[in-house]
């Protein structure tokens, strides 16, 4: 353990519906790979409806980076290729045959492999996209050599799943994955644990990595926060990051030769009757999780957490990078004089509601925006939940006026939309800040390529 980094600015939003630490097999019938999960990916489909696939069979590749393949997580039949407006490819849905057949990519001895052979194997099997790069949060480019690789070993977001539980009993696979990653960078691999909450030996005894610990409120678990403290990104730098369960998938590819995406997914949220963990391959349909397991009423199903997750239907699919499903109530109701009454029981970061008198209360929050959109008026608010040496409001405005130079100068390479999630939540003006930042990142990426 080298050092402890204390994050002071931030906010833990306390919600009802933490997942119990019990694990159930999900046994989902349908699975999907969603090209929209991969930022900047232009999918070229390789399969047709009705085709038979195995785990590891390619489904599509990226038109502009055609060595990156996206493969099926299970064996079975393609039942639907779902497209949206302008024929945008939304989901490739696979019905599992229950046999769980996997393509064999061969067991390999790392010591005899060079970097090319390793990337080749990862690309072909479809495990490569678990590696993402900063800036931009796109799938890593196999031609790049990152200056370091970051692995967050805890999640600080609301109702966060327990990473310790996810790697429990998988120490060998995890270490095998770390050994593979070590071959991909000339720099360090940073494994960042929570100063108190991380107790798993899998993390604390990991080799070939630098372990640092963090503490403090969300976003202390965000990878940008770790990068900013340990190996800040300057213009032109590339850093990769990957999550622990995906490291296990990489490990398995090399020790068993299979693309085995088995993982734990936490079902959380105030509207879930029995919040707990499910074991499943990637991309599973959530219908088995939530069937007879959610409260009545209009609900919002989220793949991911309440800050950064994607809205899905009740029979939707788990996102590629998500390890959590959250179910909260929809908030499409009118509230009489909601802004003027004292507002007991309402959640607010500002002290303009009595909520601040009871900081430990857990809330059942819904999706109501609680007000109309306005121009930026308040200042100094975002800074309280934004632990970077960056001026958030100024950066947002730089994106709005599309000033590329200014964005760069203000540090857009160092952050991601998820780092602005708390700003968006507490914003008095109800601005869609994450979307603005995403647009800014896309703009920069286009400009730089």
């Amino acid at each position: 353990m080298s050092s402890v980094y204390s994050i002071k600015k931030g906010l833990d939003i306390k919600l009802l519906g933490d997942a119990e630490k019990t694990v159930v097999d999900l046994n989902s019938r349908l699975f999907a790979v969603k090209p929209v999960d991969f930022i900047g990916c232009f999918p070229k489909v390789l399969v047709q409806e009705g085709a038979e696939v195995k785990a590891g069979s390619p489904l599509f590749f990226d038109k502009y980076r055609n060595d990156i393949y996206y493969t099926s997580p299970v064996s079975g039949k393609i039942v639907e290729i779902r497209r949206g407006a302008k024929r945008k490819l939304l989901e490739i849905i696979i019905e599992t045959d229950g046999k769980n057949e996997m393509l064999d990519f061969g067991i390999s001895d790392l010591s005899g492999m060079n970097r090319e052979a390793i990337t080749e194997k990862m690309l072909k099997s479809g495990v490569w996209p678990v590696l993402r790069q900063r800036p931009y949060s796109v799938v890593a480019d196999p031609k790049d050599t990152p200056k370091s690789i970051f692995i967050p070993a805890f999640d600080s977001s609301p109702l966060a799943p327990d990473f310790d539980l996810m790697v429990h009993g998988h120490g060998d696979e995890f270490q095998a994955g770390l050994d593979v990653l070590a071959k991909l960078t000339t720099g360090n691999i940073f494994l960042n644990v929570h100063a108190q909450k991380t107790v798993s030996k899998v993390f604390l005894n990991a080799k070939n990595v630098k372990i640092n610990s963090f503490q403090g409120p969300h976003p202390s678990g965000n990878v940008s926060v770790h990068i900013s403290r340990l190996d800040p990104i300057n213009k032109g730098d590339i850093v990769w990051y990957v999550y622990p369960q995906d490291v296990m998938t990489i490990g398995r590819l090399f020790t068993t030769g299979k693309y085995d995406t088995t993982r734990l997914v936490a079902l959380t949220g105030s509207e879930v009757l029995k919040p707990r963990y499910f074991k499943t391959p990637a991309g599973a349909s959530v219908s088995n999780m939530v069937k007879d397991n959610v409260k009545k009423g209009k609900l919002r199903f989220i793949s991911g957490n309440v800050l950064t997750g994607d809205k899905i239907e009740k029979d939707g699919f788990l996102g590629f990078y998500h390890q959590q499903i959250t179910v909260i109530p929809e908030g499409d109701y009118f509230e009489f004089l909601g802004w003027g009454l004292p507002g007991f029981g309402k959640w607010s970061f500002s002290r303009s509601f009595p909520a601040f008198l009871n900081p430990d209360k857990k809330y059942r929050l819904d999706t109501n925006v609680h007000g109309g959109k306005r121009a930026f008026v308040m200042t100094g608010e975002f800074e309280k939940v934004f632990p970077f040496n960056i001026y958030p409001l100024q950066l947002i405005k730089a994106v709005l006026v599309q000033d590329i130079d200014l964005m760069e100068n203000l540090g857009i390479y160092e952050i991601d939309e998820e780092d602005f999630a708390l700003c968006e939540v507490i914003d008095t003006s109800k601005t869609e800040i994450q979307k603005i930042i995403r647009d800014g990142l896309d703009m920069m990426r286009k400009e730089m390529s």
Partner: protein
Amino acid sequence: MKALRNFIDKQKPHFLPGGRFEKLQSTFEAFETFLFVPNTVTKSGAHIRDAIDMKRTMIIVVIALIPAMLFGMWNVGYQHFLSYGQHPDVLTNFFYGFWKVLPLIIVSYVVGLGIEFMFAQIRHEEVNEGFLVSGILIPLIVPPDIPLWELALAVAFAVVFGKEVFGGTGMNVFNPALTARAFLFFAYPGNMSGEKVWIADKLDTFSGATPLGKALVGNFSNFPSVHDMFFGFIPGSVGETSTFLILIGGLILLITGIASWRTMFSVFAGGYVMGLLFNLWGANAYMGIPAWQHLIMGGFAFGAVFMATDPVTSAQTNKGKYYYGFLIGIMAVLIRVFNPAYPEGMMLAILLLNVFAPLIDHYVVESNIKKRLKRAKLALTN
């Protein structure tokens, strides 16, 4: 509530584009969202949102102003009767002042909101809540006897040229309430300064000079006591006299976090430091008054608590707020002591620093950019 909701839902189609009253859509929406927080749900980004919104923010500032406003009403009556040598009971004083101040408030709101509604409709936007605060601030920073038509003109000028031409709430450079006051100050100086205007319908033989007015001409005989100045039993603009109740309002703003403690604190610090400097200089009797007395005279406290902290026109970076506030304090006292024409300097100090706030921010942000470039250079050399 349900019946009211149903009624609104029934009327709504008439105000939507294509309806009979589509020209009143913004106005309708303003009243609808005033009654009911809308049912919009999150579409992109985070799925949950804080309960706070602009209406909540603005209403808290209005609440914070109420103590000073109520006292101001009472004091208008108190000063009036005092000039006649009378001492009626609290309610008589209050209602005399109430009927003096209420028309000011009504004129300010009707003119200001009318223009806001018009501009919102032209822009097809929702009506901004900013004027809820400006509309109450303006009556509190004018003399009680200001002619209503002058006030109406000033409010119209402030809203149109102080705010709307820049794009509305959030985009303005100058504090709208102070813009209104500055307009009156320069257009109708006879009604805005001197010894006559600060007491409503005063007896001519009674001196109505404010402490600042007296201090400027070096008249320190029968100067009001510190007690009177702090609690506000002195002539002045309607809401500015009671430092005590202004500080209570300030406390509300600080506890709720609506106003920046950085700005508020540094305005007082700046005024105090400048007062100390004058103490050292001591060229005349005015320079010799205890530095802290500057903070309880005139509009200093009101400006520090309610005007300087306006987030739109103040510096926006946390570091910048220190400079911004400190300079306001310094300038206010400097103008007070040196300007021969006008006894009070708070309004001009704040408006001046409104202009410089973006420059202050520019340098603060620039230093952040420089640090980033330096780090990048350092990484290159290693």
